[in-house]
């Protein structure tokens, strides 16, 4: 089950700054590991030449410094972020070969801090999915058990970090797509407050929900990556001006007197009891550090999945309307009229799940149904957000719960019924609807050796406390340092 002491990104940066290793050595070793593990499907494309060039340049400039804290660090970039001159596919046939003329702001921020890309990691097509079985390129395997899914949609990034193909990677989270694969793969992943990290260059799925975030070996790694990615960007109209501090330097004694809210609605039947047990042990660990637990209530929890599966597909149907075969992407051949150009390009280019969600979204936004479905869902969303606001205002400082009701399922196990797949997002969706920060960190294993994820949810803009609690937990435990064989 557990093997070597895993190397964190933070460890690696320290070794680079002390010149114990060079970026070229590190990058070569990672590229070799990627070659040895192609069956995992973690990467859609690997930028071998440009990564080695960047590594060499980083070595010549010297290791990480205060001004360039990531210098020499290779990262995996989810193939939904654009990088200028490189191909961005979004895991879709539609965008096969698409070369972006610009780099996503949050990726640019990391490059400016000295990091570079190893390659683009695999994902569910257009970020729609919870298993990475919806990629047009290949299924991704969970490194802990290759017959199982790594989770999705950021399955490639999760598998890459879990298999030590890189120590840090980027993901995106719309309804859980960073947190759930982080949980299934035994790594740490953060979805920041909505508006914290720019969405410019993050190809849109659900614009009121999408957030970029780090996926890495430790919470400290995530903290460093996130605070470098964060910041106001005028090119994203939903970007918010909020101060960012060094989240990788945890607040002292953060657990002393910390009130941990445990939502009673989350203690449902249908959770794997081993998941509940690992989460309970984690809460006890935090109580040892001085925290107290409080039972809280989020009464509209049961409507979260339904709300999300109105809002997200609706926004997706609008966002994916731009893929019409006219200006970019795959254009159907032998077409004689414009309507066919749109219809055939889209029908041939989009996979089944993407088409299903576009249909759901189109229906709920259509004339005669808009009020009953979309507007209604937006109102329930207000209530879901209000549940969190009230709980944080009156009862607790942080909410702790499982990330998922069960550990990683088998490849092919849930593909027959999309609704079953959707229902498993029950714990991650609410924080996305409310726009508040949430992260998943490993808290143990089930009896089959599969990782269990602990979810921490904080009020908006409270990333420093959130990441401090996670770092405090990881100081006392070593779940995050376990690697699959």
């Amino acid at each position, binding site marked *: 089950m557990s093997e070597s002491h895993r190397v964190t990104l933070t460890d690696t940066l320290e070794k680079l700054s002390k010149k114990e290793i060079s970026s070229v050595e590190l990058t070569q070793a990672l590229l070799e590991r990627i070659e040895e593990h192609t069956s995992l499907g973690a990467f859609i494309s690997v930028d071998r030449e440009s990564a080695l060039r960047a590594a060499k340049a980083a070595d010549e400039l010297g290791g990480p410094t205060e001004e360039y804290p990531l210098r020499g660090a290779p990262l995996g970039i989810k193939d939904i972020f654009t990088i200028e001159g490189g191909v961005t596919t979004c895991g879709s046939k539609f965008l096969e070969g698409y070369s972006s003329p610009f780099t996503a702001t949050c990726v640019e921020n990391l490059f400016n801090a000295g990091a570079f890309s190893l390659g683009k990691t695999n994902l569910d097509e257009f970020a729609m999915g919870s298993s990475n079985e919806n990629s047009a390129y290949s299924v991704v395997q969970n490194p802990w058990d290759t017959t199982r899914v790594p989770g999705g949609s950021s399955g490639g990034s999760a598998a890459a970090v879990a298999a030590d193909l890189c120590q840090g990677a980027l993901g995106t989270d719309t309804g859980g797509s960073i947190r759930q694969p982080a949980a299934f793969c035994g790594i740490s992943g953060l979805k920041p407050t909505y508006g914290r990290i720019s969405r410019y260059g993050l190809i849109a799925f659900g614009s009121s929900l999408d957030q970029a975030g780090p996926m890495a070996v430790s919470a400290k790694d995530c903290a460093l990556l996130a605070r470098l990615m964060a910041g106001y960007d005028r090119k994203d109209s939903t970007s918010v001006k909020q101060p960012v501090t060094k989240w990788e330097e945890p607040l002292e004694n953060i657990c002393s007197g910390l009130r941990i809210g445990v939502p009673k609605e989350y203690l449902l039947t249908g959770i794997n009891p081993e998941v509940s047990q690992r989460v309970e042990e984690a809460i006890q660990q935090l109580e040892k550090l001085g925290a107290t637990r409080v039972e809280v209530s989020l009464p509209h929890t049961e409507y979260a999945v339904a709300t999300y*599966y109105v809002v997200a597909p609706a926004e997706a149907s609008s966002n994916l309307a731009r893929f019409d075969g006219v200006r970019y992407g795959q254009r159907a051949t032998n077409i004689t009229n414009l309507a066919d150009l749109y219809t055939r390009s889209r029908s041939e280019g989009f996979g089944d799940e993407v088409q299903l969600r576009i*249909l759901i979204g189109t229906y709920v936004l259509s004339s005669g149904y808009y009020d009953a479905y979309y507007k209604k869902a937006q109102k329930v969303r207000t209530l879901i957000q209000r549940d969190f606001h009230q709980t944080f205002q009156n009862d607790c400082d942080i909410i702790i719960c499982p990330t998922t009701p069960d550990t990683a399922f088998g490849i092919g196990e849930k593909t027959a019924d999309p609704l079953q797949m959707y229902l498993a997002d029950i714990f991650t969706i609410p924080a996305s609807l409310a726009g508040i920060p949430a992260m998943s960190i490993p808290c143990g294993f089930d009896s089959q050796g599969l990782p269990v994820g602990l979810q921490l949810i904080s009020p908006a803009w409270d990333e420093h406390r959130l990441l401090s609690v996670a770092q405090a937990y990881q100081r006392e435990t070593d779940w995050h340092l376990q690697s699959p064989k």
Partner: protein
Amino acid sequence: MSNSKNIVIDTNQVKKIANLARLTIPEERTALVSERLTNILSYIKQLNEVDTDEVEPLSHVHGAVNAYREDESEEYENKEQILANVPERSGNFIKVPLVIDQESH
């Protein structure tokens, strides 16, 4: 949308929705898509149970309404890199089939 009626998305409705979305579902898949849409939309119907009488719809989580900037244009230098992705080009123009035509609907 009535509480008492069950939601059924039959194959004709699938075709109508698909047409709005500029998609065609192949004949052999329509039954499956119809079943999936019916299941999902039936599940979603439970939102009707929630009392939202005095509740405002949420469109932005932090209540933002708009983000303004000065109405100033900037020169963009990289046009060729954008146009390089166009499937069929003629110089700086994008080629498409006839837009206005007697047969078009």
